[in-house]
């Protein structure tokens, strides 16, 4: 076991896979010589060479298209999109091609591409360095969508993603690259070394895609969340003294409905929380599915906590971010509802 932050854990996952499988290649803007603007690919080009870790032109659509072609030719490309806010130029290649290639060719062709991209706010990035667009990928049939909330999962899920023969869009909440974050920007930053999930095996292991993680068992209410919000929700529940069951969705697609349903059938109450904008977002899917499956067990409406339906504003980051207060307000409403 080593102490790793999320950047190191992700780096370790790629390092291991580059070493194990000569078909694994890394490509993206500034990922090679420089090691990535968040340094997630640091040292990999030096170790594996310029033909395995490629700097690319600044063309997200081209990066994904090239990765698809490489995948079709037997490689296992891991493409980095520098910020999730810049993934849209690749949207057509992802939605129309990557997601549907296996289907349309009846399984003759597929491209085992992993697309890594940092998402989320809290680093004063303004509207173009803060987005959480998982919702517009989760709706697309044929894509797996993942977002880890800690170094252990990050490494295990990334290895699973790279080994997966289906395409995976892998979101990395950049706010928690260096340490868990409970939503209070005024508190001193906490490193991952203070967190049990910062203990990361140095070698190969996987965390399965398609399984939620019950971060905390509890009987009062179920909080369904993922990414940075896992830590915010934990803190909010703690501050209210609630015995909350907290579920880290981890993989948006495929969704582990069973774990969610078991929990809400037990607690009878549920809050869904994500950082992405609320309207039409992934939280709607979570809420609707849980409601369909657990209607007769529900003692209160399922509430959603999310970013407001505006772009992520630079100066009002903390008024925008769904922090502990917003989660707590929803939890209180849900707990106060008559049974």
């Amino acid at each position, binding site marked *: 076991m080593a102490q790793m932050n999320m950047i190191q854990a992700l780096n370790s996952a790629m390092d291991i896979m580059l070493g194990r499988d000569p078909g694994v290649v890394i490509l993206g803007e500034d990922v090679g010589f420089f090691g990535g603007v968040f340094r997630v690919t640091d040292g990999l080009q030096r170790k594996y060479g310029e033909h395995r870790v490629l700097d690319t032109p600044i063309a997200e659509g081209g990066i994904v*298209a090239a990765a698809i072609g490489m995948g079709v030719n037997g490689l296992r490309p891991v493409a980095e999109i520098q910020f999730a806010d810049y993934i849209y130029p690749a949207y057509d290649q992802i939605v129309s091609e990557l997601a549907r290639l296996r289907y349309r060719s009846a*399984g003759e062709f597929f491209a085992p591409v992993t697309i890594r991209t940092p998402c989320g706010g809290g680093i004063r990035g303004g509207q173009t360095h803060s987005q959480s667009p998982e919702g517009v990928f989760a709706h697309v049939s044929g894509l797996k969508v993942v977002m880890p909330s800690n170094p252990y999962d990050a490494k295990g899920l990334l290895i699973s993603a790279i080994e997966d023969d289906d395409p995976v869009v892998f979101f990395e909440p950049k706010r928690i690259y260096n340490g868990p974050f409970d939503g209070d920007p005024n508190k001193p930053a906490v490193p991952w070394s203070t967190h049990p999930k910062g203990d990361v095996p140095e070698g190969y292991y996987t965390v399965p895609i398609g399984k939620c993680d019950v971060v905390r068992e509890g009987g009062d209410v179920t909080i369904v969340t993922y990414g940075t919000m896992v830590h915010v929700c934990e803190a909010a529940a703690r501050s209210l003294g609630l015995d909350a069951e907290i579920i880290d969705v981890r993989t948006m697609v495929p969704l582990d409905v069973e774990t969610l349903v078991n929990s809400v059938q037990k607690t009878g109450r549920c809050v869904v929380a994500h950082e992405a904008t609320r309207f039409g977002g992934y939280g709607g899917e979570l809420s609707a599915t849980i409601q369909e499956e657990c209607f007769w067990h529900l003692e209160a409406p399922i509430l959603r906590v999310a970013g407001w339906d505006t772009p992520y504003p630079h100066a009002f980051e903390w008024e925008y971010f769904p922090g502990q207060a917003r989660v707590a307000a929803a939890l209180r409403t849900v707990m106060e509802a008559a049974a």
Partner: protein
Amino acid sequence: MRPSRLHIPKHHSRPGETPDFSYLELAPAGATQRPDINTRVRDMNGLAFELVRVIDDGHTAVGPWNPHLDPPELQVGLRHMMLTRAFDDRMQRMQRAGKTSFYMRSLGEEAVAVAQGMALRPTDMLFPSYRQQGLYVVRGRPLVDLMCQLLSNTRDMCKGRQLPIMYHWRDGNIFSISGNLTTQFPQAVGWAMAAAIKGTDDIAATWIGEGSSAEADFHHAMLFASVYEAPVILNVVNNQWAISTFQGFAGGEHRSFAARGPGFGMAGLRVDGNDFLAVYAVTRWAAERARNGFGPTIIEHVTYRGAAHSTSDDPARYRPKDDYERWPLGDPVERLKNHLIDLGEWSEERHAALAKEMDEHVVASWKEAVTYGTLTEAPRLDAHLMFEDVFKEMPEHLKKQEAELRAERAEK
């Protein structure tokens, strides 16, 4: 001095007008030089503006691009083109008769796919668009298989999921056709990059129409191919039309599409797309360049869309009826036929016999194909195939939906 104003590209003709093809920059056969494959791009910019032609007006093969193919090879080429045409004709009629939902012919452009298919190695990977059915003919996919795809029947390679003509063939090294234009162009470059990373000497070739060159993926392909010097051939089939709009709307009014190559420091060639020998020769040249590490080539094939865009389209609304007959570069089948006759290796009689043979082959194939069902007649594919291959393994939510459909159908 004139005021700034919005320029609207001009069409060579609209319904009721006589086509004016004077905009075409032609060149006599044999006139264009053939540089060595290791020539620096900057020393052969001219190729992007000239027009490689081999078969001259007297049906003779002339000039430095003459590939000197043996008559049997030429006869095979003719046969492939004629089979492609016979297939197209019959499939068009079958769509009109309501047997399939959709079809797209390659009338007038057969030389492009056939000559290029023949000039490449079987292990070279092909990323076609929807008008290169000739590639399947060259590589020997039984017509029955293609027809079953058109019919979405029980032997449909696409398992009922794709619109007709969206073939694929892994074992034949032909990539799946996408309904989305141009997406395969940069994918082919990625494939070629992987070939180079792996150190194999296979190359990739890919095709789009000139209209499709407007899409962003054209740029991605040009850029990645030139930056990494990927072993790939990028083909732009300039058949002058993109549904109802003329090639000028894709930027062909001011400069050839081949010229985009030199703009990126990439070799660019313009070829008479209706000249089997010329297409073969430039493809061989580009393939040798790519295979030997001298980088990618963009080839513009100057040709004409002889038929409608697709069976959903009525060209009488936007172009004259007789335009194809007036196309100055002729018909690719006729031109190769005449060349073979000129060589003393072919005759009208043999030609008529071959045409008949091809048509009979198509008819027999069709007869077999329909025994496997049609879109509307039994035997039909199991609709539950719809849930497979979304992912490698079916996830829970799809299993649930499949069960729902089963219940829904049981009720009926």
